[in-house]
């Protein structure tokens, strides 16, 4: 069907782009999750009023296009503060906050899903707040939260396509570069889509599987 000039080197170039996509995603998701858990517990524990500043920041990062966040962070860190940061660093910072914002919600939802009575049972056995959190709430909340968390990780992976604005050459940008040279947009886009799909689909299915498995016990 396709008579293509695409070479093995070009495929390797795309694979490197996909590698960058995965790297940016992995870094952001790891740090974002840690931060999200901290914020999530923090919000749950402090109550709405004390947690308001954090809530606001997280809310902002969910309410402004990622593209603008990247441009602004880049302009602010680089142009205003004159910090010498690579585009990769800026991209990871923005995506980390972005991940944390959604993750905090997921964590809070997970904690909320642990029945109050189960927690009461733990406390009435003499467990401290921390023990209750560690041995009862976290394991149970994880079951509720993990499927959404996988969804989030995949979302971040897809949204990382936007980090091209800070000169990070990831999968989508690699594809555009090849389109520039080879002028086979449809074919290259299909390959690019396939790459995304191959990374994303198994994980998405795994999330669905966990959800199904855990929803009936």
């Amino acid at each position, binding site marked *: 069907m396709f008579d293509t000039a695409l070479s093995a080197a070009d495929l390797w170039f795309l694979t490197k782009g996909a590698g960058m996509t995965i790297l940016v995603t992995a870094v952001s998701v790891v740090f974002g999750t840690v931060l999200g858990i901290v914020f999530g517990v923090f919000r749950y524990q402090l109550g709405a009023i004390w947690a308001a500043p954090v809530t606001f920041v997280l809310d902002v990062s969910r309410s*402004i*296009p990622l593209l603008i966040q990247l441009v*602004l962070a880049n*302009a602010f860190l680089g*142009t*205003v503060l*004159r910090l010498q940061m690579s585009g990769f660093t800026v991209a990871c910072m923005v995506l980390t906050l972005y991940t944390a914002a959604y993750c905090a919600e997921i964590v809070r939802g997970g904690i909320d899903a642990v029945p109050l009575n189960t927690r009461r049972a733990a406390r009435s056995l003499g467990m401290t707040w921390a023990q209750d959190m560690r041995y009862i709430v976290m394991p149970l909340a994880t079951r509720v939260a993990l499927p959404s968390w996988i969804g989030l990780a995949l979302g971040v992976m897809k949204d990382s396509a936007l980090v091209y604005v800070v000169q990070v050459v990831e999968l989508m940008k690699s594809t555009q570069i090849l389109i520039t040279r080879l002028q086979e947009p449809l074919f290259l*886009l299909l390959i690019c889509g396939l790459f995304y799909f191959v990374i994303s689909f198994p994980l998405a299915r795994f999330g669905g599987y966990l959800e199904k498995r855990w929803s009936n016990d």
Partner: protein
Amino acid sequence: MFGYTFQWKQALSKLPQMLDGALVTMEIALLSMAIGIALAVLLTLFRLSGNRVLNGFAVTWVEVARNTPALFQIYMAHFGVASFGIHFSPFTSLLIGITFNNAGYLAENFRGALKAIPETQTRAGRSLGMTPLEAFGYIVMPQMLRIAFLPMTNQMVWAILMTSLGVTVGLNIDLYGVTQDLNALTFRTFELFAIAGVIFYLITKIIQLGARLVAARLFRY
């Protein structure tokens, strides 16, 4: 304090142009939601139909929409399909891309919502003499839309945010496009995009507030 001098006045003077852009952004988001919801209901029906072809079509749509970046979908709607000689204007391309994405995500939400509606509701409808389609339309769908209302609000917010990707297909009349055009002229990047960010933030807040009011009016049960 900074090595950079802010020039807010110059940037703020462009506010009217940016607000015009915000209107276009909202227009695209609203249209894409309206069409997206209709398509999502259709996809949901396809999935319920038991017909393998229709079901396969719906599943493919949903999986592609959910497993590839929105940027990809929009780029595809403009440059990809043009390889078949089908040309859409930037506005239409963006609308198609976002609508495709919305429909996929909403269909999945609807499927989840459907699970929460007891089968006995359909039975009750059928035993009053309704056809399957009537039972779906009058009984199941309204309840489904209520359960899916919050996810729908989120999707609306995402639709707003996704309009920023229109620049990749040559759109320059939406909020992000206008901002970028202004930036190309003056390079007051931080100021201009900060203003755009505030406008986006306000739009999403208005949507969320509006959704709450609508929900209060619509779902009194």
